[in-house]
């Protein structure tokens, strides 16, 4: 087998601790405890190994990365490794002083999540009263610290109708970029799918809103927006393809081809405390299993798009079909594609109650 191309991005999930309880959290349903977290020195070694491999961009995420008191030290390790560091935060626990310390340590960029354009609904979705107001204060502190800001709005049936308000909020807060991210349905979000899936009419209205805003705000605000899988005909090249450009490392040190990959059965994901990142990238079985096209079944195997979408998302394929190697049902050629339409129909008549994210809930649902 030929050597894979070097990885471009590293997602460092520093902790699973988080003050928010979003019902679509991308963390695994089985959350890690604080006592299992990698220390800052180990993260520093992982960052240096990543840079040597070819990684340029580092995403510091969680959970809430600011739950780590040693976050400035971790950011300093990223800067000395020469990685572009992006802090992905809920913003509810970081004050101006801690933010200045992060900027001084070499932080390059802040991505702030918001749950809605209206405080009442945002606080209900995030499961934290007063959270939205604290996010707005935090965004102003980011501006004052001279750091670039991206607003990340996770959208779904219960907030998509206020997308225009989210765009206005991004402008008001001085964000250079707005990421409109549709919920992806595995883990916590799959449990809450009936309460979150948007209707086709909602989605079409949102797409029109984005198209109009992009034109109007050209040169002022960049809007990233991707049509969600449940209303798509083609699957996404999840993570740019398994083991092709991206490595995630969990709080406890497991290296993953995708941050949700621990939802897949039958894997022994390598531990960064036991193996170098170079070995993990080139040699480990986990990173090779779905790399390239050799593993593909039909209809992927004979498909002209196979080196564009790489068979789609493994987590979604497993969640919906029970087979980790199946074609992603988001693809119109998948024999399971009808499951997505059925889910949209079910959601259209379902309620709005959430199962919130919490520690130790893995067996409760």
């Amino acid at each position, binding site marked *: 087998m030929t050597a894979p191309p070097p990885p471009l991005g590293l997602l460092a999930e520093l902790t699973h601790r988080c003050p928010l309880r979003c019902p679509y959290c991308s963390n695994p349903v089985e959350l890690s405890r604080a006592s299992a977290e990698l220390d800052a020195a180990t993260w520093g070694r992982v960052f240096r190994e990543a840079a040597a491999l070819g990684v340029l961009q580092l995403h510091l995420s969680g959970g809430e990365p600011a739950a780590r008191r040693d976050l400035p030290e971790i950011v300093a390790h990223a800067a000395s490794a020469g990685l*572009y560091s*992006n802090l992905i935060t809920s913003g509810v626990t970081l004050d101006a002083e801690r933010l200045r310390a992060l900027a001084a340590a070499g932080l390059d*960029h802040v*991505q702030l999540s918001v749950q809605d354009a209206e405080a009442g609904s945002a606080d209900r979705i995030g499961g934290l009263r007063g959270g939205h107001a604290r996010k707005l204060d935090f965004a102003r502190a980011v501006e004052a610290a*001279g*750091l670039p800001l991206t607003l990340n709005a996770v959208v779904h049936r219960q907030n998509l109708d206020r997308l225009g308000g989210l765009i206005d909020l991004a402008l008001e807060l001085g964000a*250079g970029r707005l990421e409109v991210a549709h919920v992806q349905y595995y883990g916590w979000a799959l449990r809450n799918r009936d309460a979150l899936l948007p209707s086709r009419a909602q989605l079409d209205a949102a797409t029109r809103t984005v198209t109009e805003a992009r034109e109007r705000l050209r*040169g002022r605000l960049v809007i*990233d927006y991707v049509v969600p899988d449940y209303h798509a005909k083609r699957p996404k090249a999840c993570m740019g393809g398994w083991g092709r450009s991206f490595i995630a490392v969990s709080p406890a040190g497991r290296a993953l081809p995708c941050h949700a990959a621990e939802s897949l059965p039958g894997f022994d994901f390598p531990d960064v405390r036991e193996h170098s990142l170079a070995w993990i990238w080139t040699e480990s079985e986990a990173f090779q299993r779905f790399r390239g096209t050799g593993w593909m079944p039909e209809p992927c195997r004979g498909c002209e798009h196979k080196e564009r979408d790489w068979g789609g998302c493994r987590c979604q394929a497993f969640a919906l079909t029970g087979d980790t190697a199946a074609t992603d049902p988001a693809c119109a050629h998948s024999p399971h594609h009808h499951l997505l339409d059925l889910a949209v129909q079910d959601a259209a008549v379902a309620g709005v109650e959430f199962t919130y994210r919490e520690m130790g809930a893995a067996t409760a649902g």
Partner: protein
Amino acid sequence: MTLSPASVPRFARGMRLREDPARGRWVVVGPERLFVPDEIALEVLRLLDGARGVDAIVDDLAARYHAPREAIAADVLALLDDLQAKGVVTA
């Protein structure tokens, strides 16, 4: 915000031009974005210092490549306009 010959373009906040030694190229890195400039774009980006205006950039390139100034000016403005729309450059 249309760019003109008098504009002074600079990198947008958070955008950085850097070498990518693992792949033998230069790239602009930003928040969850990566741009790989072609040879001409790289020449223009290397001249962005927050002080030099579009006119001065065009002068520099026209002199170095012995090319007609009008053609260079049109190319540079189109390039910078595109980079501004992508959030790489601001003026």
